Every structure is written in C-alpha cells, then in structure tokens.
C-alpha cells in the first residue's frame, strides 16, 4: 500500500469502523441470547414448573382420596376422584408431555419418565381399588378389604416417592432457570465491558490519529508555510531534504529544490556583484526564466566590465606615462588608497603601510612645515590643496619632486571626511624649472650688478666731477690768496680720488668681464700664511693676535686670486675695525659643512672681537658697493662687495653673524 497520508488516514478510520462493527455484532448477539433465554423461560420452564406443581398437588390429593374413600365411600369423594382421574391428571400429563418435548436436559427427561411410571402405577392402583370397592359386597369382604388396604399402602408409598421425584425435578428446573438468568446477566456484563472497550479503543485511536495528523501533517505543513512566507518576504533559508515518501515529503523536497535553485541564483548574482563573471551556471531547465535573465545580465555586465577595464587600463597607462598617481584619503582612518603609479612614486606598496603618517615621514624636513600648514589650511577652510614638495622615496631614498593636489569631500556638517587627489612626479620638470630659475637668478643678479655698476659710475664719477667743477668755480670767484691755496689743495685731493675711483672701476670691470674662472685644489694653510704675511704691517701695527685652526692638509677647490682676495678682505677687515682699547683677536676655522644642506662641502670661518655691525641697520647693504658702516678713513666700501662677488662666482655663499661691540663672524661656504 502507498505510504500516503490519505492511506494512513483511511487505515485509521477503517480501524475505528471495524471496531464499531465488532462491538455492534456482539451487542446484537447478546440481545438475541437474552431474548431467547427469556422466551424459553416464559414458554417452557415456568409452565413446566407450574404443571409439575399441579401434578404434585393432585397426586397428594389422589392419595388422600383413595385412602379416605376406601374406608368410607361417599359420592362426593367419588366424583372428585373421577374428575382427578379422568380430567385433571391426564390433562396435566399431556401438557407436560408436550412441554417436555422442548426440554434439553436429559436428567430432567429421565426424572419425568420415572414420574410418569409412578403416576401410571398409582393410577392403575387407584383404578384397581375403585373396581374392587364398586361391588356392594366388597365392603363386607374382608379379603377384598385387605387387598384394598395393601393397595392403599402401595399408593401411599408410590405417591410419596413420586412427590419427592417431582419436588426434585422442580428444584432442578428452578436451578436451570437461575442458571439461565445468570448466563444472561453474564452476557449483559460482557456487553457493557465490550462497549466500554470499544469506546476506549475509538477514543484512543482518534487521539492517536489526531496526534499523528498534528505531528506528521500540520507541523511540517506549518514549517513549509513559514519557509514560503519568508521567501515571499525575500528571506531565503535552505530547507532540508525530507526522507518522507508522502505528499508532504514531496512538497518539502520540491521547496527544498526550489530554494536551492534560488540560493544558487543568489550565489550567482552575488558573484556577479563581486565581479566574478566567468562563473559557470547551470539552468534548472529550459524554462528557467530567472536563470536565463541572470545569465544574460551576467553577460552584459561582463561586456561592460571589460570595456571599463579597458578604459581603466588606458587610464592607468596614461597615469604611468605622465607619472601621475591618484589617492583617496579617509580622514577618520588616517589611511589612504592609491593607484599603482602613486605607490611607485612614494615607494610605499604594502596596503597596511599606506597611512598619512608614513606618507608625511617621506617629506623632506625643509618642506614639512609648508606641507603641514597647507594641509591644515585646506582641511580647515575646505580649500583645494595644491603644493609642490620634495620627498625621500621609500626604500630607495631617492629625492623626488612631487606636485600634490587634493579636493575635499565633506559630510552634511561641512566637515572634511575624505580627500581625493593626484600626485605627480615632477622631478624632471622641476629640475628644469630650478635650472631655469637659477639661470634667471643669475641673469637677474648680473642685471642688478650691471645697474649697480652704472649707478656707481654715475654716482662716483659725477661726485668727483661735481666737486672739481664746484672748486674751480669757487677758485674763479675767490679773491683771497689763502682761499685759493685751500681750494687748490682740495682740487688735488679731488683729482686723486677720481683716479682711485677709476682704478676701482677698472678692477670691477675686469672681474665682471671674466665669465669662466679657473678652479684648482689649493692648500688653505699656505694661502692663509701668505695673506698674513701681506698683512704683517697692519697686524703688528695693532698688535693683533691671529689664531688659525687650519691644518696643513686642508684643501679647497678655488680660484687662487679669489681665495687670496677673500682671505685678505676678511682678515684685514677683522683687524681694521677693532674695538678701541681691546687687543684684536682673529680666529680662523675650517670645517665640514654638516646638516642637510649638501650643496656645500666645507666652511671657512673668520671670527673677530671687533666693533661688530648692527645687522638690523646694515645687514641688507653689507655686501653693496661703496657701503661703509664705520667712520673709518680707510673704509672704501669695496672689499665685501668684491668678496661676495667672488664667493658667488665659486658657487658658494657667505653668512655674517655680528653684534655691535662684540665682534663679527663671517662664514664662507665652499662648494
């Protein structure tokens, strides 16, 4: 039989109906038995007992009559005897014979046969007495009387036996009646029990049937309903495959397959979403509309993605060629995402290392302030960030110029949450730009010098010309000889100064005309000794103390004439502008240029304890032409101008530290 639910239910109901039929049949049987018993009792047993009782009475009466009549015959007794013998007793016998045909108990029939025999002998004896006594003479006949007497005694004996026999038969009959009643009562009890059992059975089977329905039908159906409702709401949970072979099992398996199909599609769609376009996907059937749509969507997306990748590839290539990288910086995370080119520029390649801190650590120290300030400003004011700075490439340590631009993205409160921007490696253009700037700077410098020169020429030459002219005019106008002599002296002085100025100008023109100056390795100590020798008069004149810490092996790459000029001017200045009353002391040092500035290899330092210069007042014109700062007759305002020019020409620079009354330190940076 099929294991279907309908089958199971049918079996349950069949069991109930069958048990009801069994109970009904038993019921009918008991009713039938009871009715039959009752009928038997009414039709046979009760009348039989009544007839037996009648016979018993009649027989006792017969005994009494036959006895009494034998002693005193009378008409009334005779009539009674006749009625008994001819009507009542034969009637009883016939009725009993009829009833006894229905009797089933053999002992009863045997007992009845005995009763019949006694009855017959009694009747025969009574009839014998009657026939004896009917003769008139018989009364006198002693013999006859004796015969009667014997007969009466026999009758008495027989009837008393008969009476006992009937009594016992009545007792048997009554007992059988009781037995029959007890049997019916037993059957009735059985009926009650049977009915109770049937009811209990029906209730039990019903309960089990309901339980079964609930567990095996209602609950699984509810579970399935839940799954379907969840699916209707868009949730998808896998349903296990059922081992049941019935309708619910089949429904569950169908749903399981359906959900599995949906899950597979979800997985497929998710993979499409993640960009995995090469995933295999098996359609559920030819009619799988959703599957077909998904596959076609996947194909379209793959095509679009391919085009996008192509575009992206070109963009990346373009960025690589242009050396432009892009970045996306999230302020809260402090980390950035970047393109390959940006990673190449910075040298930071590990995702975990892409933090703003690491990026900033690559910025060269001299640019840090600039970058931080600009970044802070850009984020605070929500402005475009655009800066050019130098970095140490991570790993290689190479110095690279970068141009970084960043645009802010703000949240609803206007706070900057992220920055998107570009970084370009501009080392090539920057180098060119710097070279250009340098050329421009040199050109400007030269231009400045040129205009300075024309200024000097106009100023100094005119000054002397004006003076000579003025003196000549006064000479013309003056009448006193004393005045004339004075004017003439001044004219001589003015002429001398004009000549001196012309020499200076010659010197400067000669120097400025030289474009390329020879540079050779020079022993610094030797050149210092040479200079000190040349300044011997001044040194001894002022009792100056010269201390040189320059070793015998110190070497500089310089133009010999320039080195001599620089040493002569700086040392002579140090002696010349001594502090009144203080013994001049000049300390010469030579040491390697440390720090980050790698443009210079060493520094020549000349320190004095002289007058000092008010840097606030004169700092800006210290190296100008014809600038003098002390009221000193030997100050010509040319020395430092030349020194500066010569140091510049050697690719170096000069720095001054000074405090009025405390002395001056000149630092000459040598390339």
């Amino acid at each position, binding site marked *: 039989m099929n294991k279907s639910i309908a089958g199971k239910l049918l079996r349950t109901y069949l069991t109930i109906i069958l048990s009801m039929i069994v109970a009904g049949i038993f019921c009918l049987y008991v009713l039938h038995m009871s009715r039959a018993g009752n009928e038997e009792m009414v039709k046979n047993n009760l009348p039989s007992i009544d007839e037996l009782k009648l016979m018993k009475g009649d027989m006792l009466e017969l005994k009494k009559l036959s006895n009494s009549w034998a002693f005193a015959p009378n008409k009334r007794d005779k009539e009674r005897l006749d009625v008994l013998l001819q009507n009542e007793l034969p009637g009883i016998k016939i009725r009993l014979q009829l009833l006894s045909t229905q009797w089933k108990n053999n002992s009863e029939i045997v007992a009845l046969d005995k009763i019949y025999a006694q009855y017959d002998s009694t009747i025969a004896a009574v009839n014998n007495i009657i026939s004896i006594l009917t003769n008139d003479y018989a009364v006198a006949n002693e013999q006859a009387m004796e015969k009667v007497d014997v007969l009466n005694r026999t009758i008495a004996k027989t009837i008393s036996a008969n009476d006992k026999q009937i009594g016992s038969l009545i007792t048997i009959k009554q007992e059988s009646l009781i037995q029959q009643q007890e049997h019916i009562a037993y059957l009735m009890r059985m009926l009650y029990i049977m009915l109770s059992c049937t009811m209990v059975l029906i209730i039990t089977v019903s309960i089990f049937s309901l339980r079964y329905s609930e567990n095996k039908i209602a609950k699984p159906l509810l579970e399935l309903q839940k799954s379907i409702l969840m699916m209707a709401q868009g949730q998808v949970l896998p349903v296990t495959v059922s081992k049941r072979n019935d309708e619910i099992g089949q429904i569950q398996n169908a749903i399981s397959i359906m959900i599995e199909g949906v899950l597979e599609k979800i997985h497929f769609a998710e993979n499409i979403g993640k960009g995995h376009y090469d995933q295999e996907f098996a359609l559920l059937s030819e009619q799988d509309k959703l599957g077909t749509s998904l596959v076609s969507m996947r194909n379209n997306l793959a095509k679009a993605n391919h085009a996008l990748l192509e575009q992206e590839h070109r963009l990346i290539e373009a960025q690589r060629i242009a050396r432009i990288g892009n970045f996306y910086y999230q302020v809260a995370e402090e980390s950035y995402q970047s393109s390959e080119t940006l990673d190449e520029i910075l040298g930071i390649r590990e995702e975990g290392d892409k933090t703003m801190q690491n990026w900033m650590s690559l910025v060269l120290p001299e640019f840090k302030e600039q970058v931080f300030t600009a970044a802070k400003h850009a984020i605070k004011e929500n402005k475009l960030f655009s800066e050019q700075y130098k970095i140490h490439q991570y790993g290689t340590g190479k110095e690279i110029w970068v141009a970084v631009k960043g645009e802010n993205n703000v949240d609803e409160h206007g706070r900057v949450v992220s920055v998107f921007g570009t970084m370009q490696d501009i080392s090539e253009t920057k180098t060119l730009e710097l070279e250009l700037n340098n050329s421009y700077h040199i050109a400007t410098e030269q231009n400045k010098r040129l205009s300075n020169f024309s*200024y000097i020429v*106009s*100023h*100094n030459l*005119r*000054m002397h010309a*004006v*003076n000579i*002219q*003025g*003196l000549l005019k*006064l000479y013309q*106008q*003056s009448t006193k000889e004393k*005045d004339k002599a*004075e004017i003439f002296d*001044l004219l001589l*002085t*003015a002429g001398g100064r004009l000549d001196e100025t012309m020499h200076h100008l010659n010197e400067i023109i000669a120097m400025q005309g030289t474009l390329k100056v020879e540079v050779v390795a020079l022993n610094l100590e030797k050149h210092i000794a040479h200079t000190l020798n040349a300044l011997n008069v001044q040194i001894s004149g002022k009792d100056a103390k010269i201390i040189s810490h320059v070793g015998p092996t110190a070497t500089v790459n310089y133009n010999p004439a320039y080195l001599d000029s620089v040493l002569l001017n700086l040392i002579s200045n140090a002696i010349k502008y001594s502090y009144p009353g203080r013994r001049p002391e000049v300390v010469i040092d030579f040491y390697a240029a440390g720090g980050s500035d790698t443009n210079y290899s060493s520094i020549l330092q000349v320190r004095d304890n002289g007058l000092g210069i008010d840097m606030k*007042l004169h700092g800006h014109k210290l190296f100008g032409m*014809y600038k*003098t*700062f*002390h*009221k*000193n007759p030997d*100050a010509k*305002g040319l020395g430092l101008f030349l020194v500066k020019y010569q140091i510049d020409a050697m690719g170096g620079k000069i720095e001054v530290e000074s405090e009025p009354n405390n002395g001056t330190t000149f630092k000459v940076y040598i390339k």
Partner: protein
Amino acid sequence: MSKVLIIDDDKIFQFILKKRIENINDSIEILTAENGHEAIALFESMLAEQQPLPQDVFIDLNMPVIDGWQFLDEIEKLIPDIANKVNIYVCSTSIAPDDKVRALGYNIVKDFLIKDIADEDLVRIIYELTGKA
C-alpha cells in the same frame, strides 16, 4: 639769525656748499656733520640746550654709520613735527630716479636736489631762508 646744517661725508662737497652759501649771504651760521649719526647727536644736543634748530638741512644719502635714509627715519621719530620747523633738502649725485621717488615719499623732505646744486635753486633757498627777494 639764520642757521643751516650740511650733512655729508664728502669734505670737499661740504667746503664747496659752505663757500657758496657764504657767497650768497655771509650772515648765515653754517653747521656741518659727517654722517647721519653726528647729525642726530647735534639735533639732540640742540633740543637739550633749547637752542634754535637749523631752518634748512642739506643731507647726502650715501654716508657711513648712519646714511641719509636712516637719518630721515630717526629724525622723524625724534621730532615728529619737524616738517613745520625744518626744511630738509636731500642732495645726491645719483641721477637714479628710484632715489628721488623714495626721498620725496618722505613728508619731511622738502625737495630733492641733484649735486652740484644749481645756482638758482640755492639762491632761492637762501632767499627764502633770509627773507630777501
């Protein structure tokens, strides 16, 4: 009595200007200073002794210690209303236009004169000073 001050480190120019002023009017008292520093000291002592200030000042630009520009800055700080009391004439051999523009930018500078100072300018200045036509 009229008083003028010549500030110039060029002794020859000092001598020439002094002689030319004396030739125009020999009653004028002529003071000289070699640089801005000396001139400031002179002004300070005159203020301290409550002497009359010079009505006219001729000042050169290129001088040691304190040059003409620094003098102008200093004197403006020392005597804020100096423009009402003293006529300052900046004298220079420079024909560079920058210096002239810069000098006339000072409120206290009355005029910019190119050395040597033209006769008519000097005569006019001295006449303005002494009141003679």
